[in-house]
């Protein structure tokens, strides 16, 4: 064999092996992602698509149903309870979000720095967020009891009120109760997140602002807000996604009552779709949330991507 040919052929062989090995490795890599991918496609992607399809049909538990176009979406807009549910979903999200931001920033500032018992305090503070929401909600149902409400008892005995409201049986007390529980639950998470942001601010920056003669409020606005705002923003988007779609509190605390007055979109979708068996209409009610959720999801992914430096 001609020596020149061998020399010329060798690198070619090596190159193609290398390419093949690279392709193989990449293939193996994608194979490793496959189980997670299949899972997510099969049990998130597929049901989501199926839900979209259901919303366009009059499917019920008993029948497969036929394509009805946007009929379900149009029908529910004329439904009084649906309108109540939309209103309540928005009201709860807006008020509890405002309360959550204020209270969690305040709590984060209280927790800042070292003091005796900080570790134990932190564990106590996060209890509301770490206990399963169904279980804490049932405790609140007992605390808001029409006869034995301990909240009313305390209020009366410290002279704050004459006779407390029937919390879960009247409006607006019932929706205030729902907002309270939702806020109570989320504040620890917000506080921990803000605290993580605050701890990242070097003390010298705050010190420098102090020396420059900045007042507390100026310092807060000019130095601290810009640093914690992005992280608070992400925490907020997450919380909003879960608050908008949350139904455990309403379902267990008020059951949507009194007379559907505290119904939210998620609990109404459950009532129509599962308890009422109208899968198509229930899916339509839930899917009214999709556009807002999409916007929130894209916003949170963008800000996460920005933080990751992508």
């Amino acid at each position, binding site marked *: 064999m001609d020596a020149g040919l061998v020399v010329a052929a060798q690198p070619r062989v090596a190159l193609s092996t290398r390419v093949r090995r690279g392709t193989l490795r990449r293939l193996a*890599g*994608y194979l*490793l*992602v496959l*189980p*997670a*991918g299949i*899972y997510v496609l099969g*049990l998130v992607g597929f*049901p*989501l698509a*199926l*839900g979209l399809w*259901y919303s366009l049909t009059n499917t019920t538990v008993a029948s497969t149903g036929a394509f009805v176009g946007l009929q379900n979406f149009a029908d529910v807009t004329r439904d009084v309870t649906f309108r109540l549910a939309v209103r309540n979903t928005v009201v709860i999200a807006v008020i509890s979000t405002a309360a959550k931001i204020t209270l969690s920033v*305040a*709590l984060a500032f*209280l927790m800042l720095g070292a003091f005796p018992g900080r570790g134990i*305090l932190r*564990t*106590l*503070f996060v209890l*509301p967020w*770490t*206990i*399963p*929401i*169904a279980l804490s*909600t*049932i*405790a*609140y149902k*007992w605390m808001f009891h029409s*006869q034995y409400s*301990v909240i009313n008892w305390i209020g009366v005995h410290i002279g704050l009120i004459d006779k407390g409201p029937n919390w879960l049986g009247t409006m607006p007390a019932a929706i205030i109760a729902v907002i309270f529980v939702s806020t*109570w639950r989320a*504040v620890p998470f917000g506080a*921990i*997140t803000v605290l*993580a942001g605050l701890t990242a601010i070097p003390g010298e920056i705050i010190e420098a602002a102090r020396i420059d003669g900045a007042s507390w409020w100026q310092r807060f606005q000019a130095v601290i807000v810009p640093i914690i705002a992005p992280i608070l923003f992400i925490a907020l988007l*997450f919380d909003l996604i879960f608050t908008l*779609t*949350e139904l455990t509190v309403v*379902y*267990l605390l008020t059951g949507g009552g009194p007379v559907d007055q505290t119904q939210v979109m998620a609990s109404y979708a*459950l009532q129509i779709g*599962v308890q009422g068996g109208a*899968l198509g209409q*229930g*899916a339509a009610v*839930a899917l009214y949330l*999709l556009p807002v*959720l999409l916007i929130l*999801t894209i916003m*949170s*992914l963008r*800000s*996460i991507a*920005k*933080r*990751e430096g992508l």
Partner: protein
Amino acid sequence: MAAQVAVQRGPFHLTRSQRSTLVRALAMATYVLVMVFPFYWMFITAFKQNSDLYELKHNPLIFNDWPTLAHLEYLFGKTLFLTWMWNSLVIGVCVVAITLLAAVPAGYALARLNLPGAQQLGIAIFATYLIPPTLLFIPLTRVVHALGLANTIWSLVIVLPTISIPFGTWLLMGFFKNVSKEIEEAALVDGASRSQAVFRVVLPISKAGLAATGMFAFAISLQAFLYPLVFTSSTNVKPVTLGVVTDLIRGDIFYWGELMAGALIAGLPVAILFNFLLNDFVEGITGGALK
């Protein structure tokens, strides 16, 4: 010095820093009271005699009669509480196993194999974490039915990883990225195969991440409420969070003592477990940029 000045002025004159400490302590105490009170309320209710519990003239904050174990006896003896706890444990362990089996290879491949489009794929998987059960539970009832899993604990074993796999993959990507490439390559040069390098070097270094992912999957499966509510209906297949809040209510009658005892016993372990995960969780969703 400051203390002397304060003494000279009398006990009610505080220095500026003492005053701010006092305000801070008061604010903190208020927070603690509001945050922790429901747990105290569960506790005292769980051990009160019914005669004490339902007597309006009594101070509800204290034991007016002797504490009792009657509610606990009822909970453990006359309800399926232990079965629900067992169901939750089985579901939790299976969900952890499925999550790790899917998330570890995915997280590793996406973080370390330089796959084209790995970042986007990672974000796409994570994005499914943001599709809440509310949008999925109606079609999923049909899927669960078609799989023949309706009204079994296996419906939850299959469905709950849809929440923990995306988040776990994302968490593990972060952990695997932090393992230095040199260590893995050193193992490869020493003659280890890629899988040996992974099992003997990369995974042991990332064990904090594996533990966090596993505990997160466990906590998620115990926190779930909507999926158990729609997929399980028979008393003996319910997980504990659902069993407690649905089966201790008969018609209009709430067994408050049993309810609070069950909530406390089922809830506290989960709460404490989740407490360990908090930092990882916050880091996971805020992009791990803060350390």
